């Protein structure tokens, strides 16, 4: 796949916008994610842990608008587990026959309810900073998975010469270094059922797996299909080359 990539890269060598965008002079920590590369897969155990971490840490501020409870079957949950997750949430529905809106427990077809009723409320609850929806976050940032992992693990004490205003926090991975989100993970913030480690980088990594899936639930299917398509096409290249040489043979001799 390297050569393929190299050719495409050189074809589009002025796609520097994709590379240059966003990260400024920040150096991101690069991890060898299981979903990297053409044979990449999503780690279900890590995604389940990441889902738990999202619910217990991130969900108090960040919405997940594009994910429905039914989508959780991708993570390996069965129907009953999914219904149980959904039922933990209150969802506004209606209007009913009397014209009233009413609250009911969530069902599998519902999307994750937002923590705030609207954007203004979200800002008001967070010092004027809007906590972005996390569904697409790993696609909406350059080198998203590495960026997110670095961001979650790079909260530090500000250097002496850096002035950190009230309500801002120093983060070595954030462009400009000042971020409005307080450090979300300190380690041991969650207790995993499978006994997996809960230090800052382990939780951050689990979240990256979960949010890479939310950004593109079809990722695994895409790569699996891709491998099959490539095999088909490479055979087609070989056969059409042979057919071409065969057909043109008489022209050369003519």
């Amino acid at each position, binding site marked *: 796949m390297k050569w393929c990539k190299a050719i*495409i890269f050189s074809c589009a060598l002025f*796609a520097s*916008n*994709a590379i240059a*965008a966003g990260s400024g002079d920040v150096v991101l920590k690069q991890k060898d994610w299981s979903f990297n590369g053409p044979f990449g897969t999503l780690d279900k155990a890590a995604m389940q842990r990441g889902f738990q971490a999202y619910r217990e840490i991130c969900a108090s501020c960040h919405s997940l608008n594009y994910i429905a409870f039914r989508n959780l079957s991708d993570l390996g949950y069965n129907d009953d587990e999914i219904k149980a997750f959904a039922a933990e949430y209150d969802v506004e529905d209606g209007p009913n026959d009397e014209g009233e809106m009413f609250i009911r427990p969530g069902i599998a077809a519902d999307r994750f309810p937002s923590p705030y009723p609207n954007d203004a409320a979200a800002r008001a609850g967070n010092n004027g900073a809007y906590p972005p929806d996390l569904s697409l976050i790993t*696609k909406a940032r350059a080198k998203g998975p590495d960026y997110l992992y670095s961001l979650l693990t790079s909260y530090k004490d500000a250097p002496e010469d850096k002035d950190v205003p009230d309500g801002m926090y120093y983060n070595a991975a954030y462009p400009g270094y000042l971020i409005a989100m307080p450090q979300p993970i300190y380690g041991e913030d969650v207790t995993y059922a499978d006994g997996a480690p809960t230090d800052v980088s382990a939780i951050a990594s689990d979240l990256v797996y979960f949010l890479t899936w939310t950004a593109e639930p079809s990722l695994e299917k*895409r790569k699996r299909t891709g491998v099959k398509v*490539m095999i088909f096409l490479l055979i087609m*290249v070989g056969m*059409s080359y042979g057919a071409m040489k065969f057909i043109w043979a008489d022209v050369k001799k003519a």
Partner: protein
Amino acid sequence: MSADKFSNPVVRWIDHRLPIFTFMDHELNEYPTPKNLNYFWNFGSLAGISLVIMIVTGIVLAMSYTPHVDYAFQSVERIMRDVNHGWLLRYIHMNGASFFFIVVFIHIFRGLYYGSYKAPRELLWILGVLILLLMMATAFMGYVLPWGQMSFWGATVITNLFSAIPLVGDSIVTLLWGGFSVDNPTLNRFFALHYLMPFLIVGVVILHLVALHRFGSNNPIGIDPSGPQDTVPFHPYYTIKDFFGLSIFLTLFAAAIFFFPNFMGHPDNYIPANPMQTPAHIVPEWYFLPFYAILRAVPDKLGGVVAMFGAIAVLFILPWLDRSPIRSGNFRPIFRIFFWVFVVDCIALGYLGGMPAEGIYVVLSRVATAWYFLHFLAILPLLSVIETPRPLPQSLSKSVLGGNAMAGVASAVKEKVR
């Protein structure tokens, strides 16, 4: 005569009344094509196939897309998540635009090198430039439809360019927007036009093909075929060669779709459009970057717009700028050097268009822009006067076969040329 060609009586009955089969036989089967075409001649058919891929995926995407500022972004995400194979359709369409431009750019540079714009193919060339213009408009409007941050701000920057036109500029911008800012009416009309324009392209492509088949393909030697010994029937020789080229193209295309589908896009376009928040750098899609660099190289707004459109306009009059009677760059030693300098210049413009407009990049953009126009307006006219071309071979067959009857087409061409 033609009716006798077909053994199927139904085909004969139809063809006698509507000679569609004769037409197809003539244009796709026996159509005489120079036998020495190299792989650069594959890109015309690849462009046609790209157009078909874009139209087919586009129509299916439109079935699930909602052109409204409140729903456009969501509807694209629904396509990615809930529509069966929607992710595949959208990634094909999204990367298809880039691949269409890659193919068309190579097709254009092939025409530039081998002098395919020269008599009697001037109108063929002009129709091609028209297709490029329509493609650019279509691609620009298509990029607006997902209504992400780059969609919105790209639309804002590019539509604002028209305000530079004296007197009527502001009215034109209001008309484009359907209001006083980029908003729902803008998205609606862009969707309507994005759906319409590919079919205009199909129309111009048909004219392009009619003009092409009038005199047939140019070829790497650049002299006309002198008789049947210089040509082969299109089928099966070029159908199979085009099919082989298509296999390679699809392999690269599939690699992009399945393994790095977002590489040529911008991450900001996965953030829903927000008129209150400007992205740090607004950059167009990569295929517009050379033109974007030209736009920004000129310090005056109107001047920049004129230069940008001038960069395309100059292509329309190219057949009358390069007066050299020799078509192929292979026989023009000085032109050949300047051609490659021009290629580097275009790539440099593309690179500079993606860089922030500050410091050394501004200076380099100006130099590269000046060179772009210098190439067409000074170097090519001058070369046609002062350059001494190398002697041309007497016929295609001679150059194809050389002295050695067993030599392959490609190697024989190379021998003759180098």
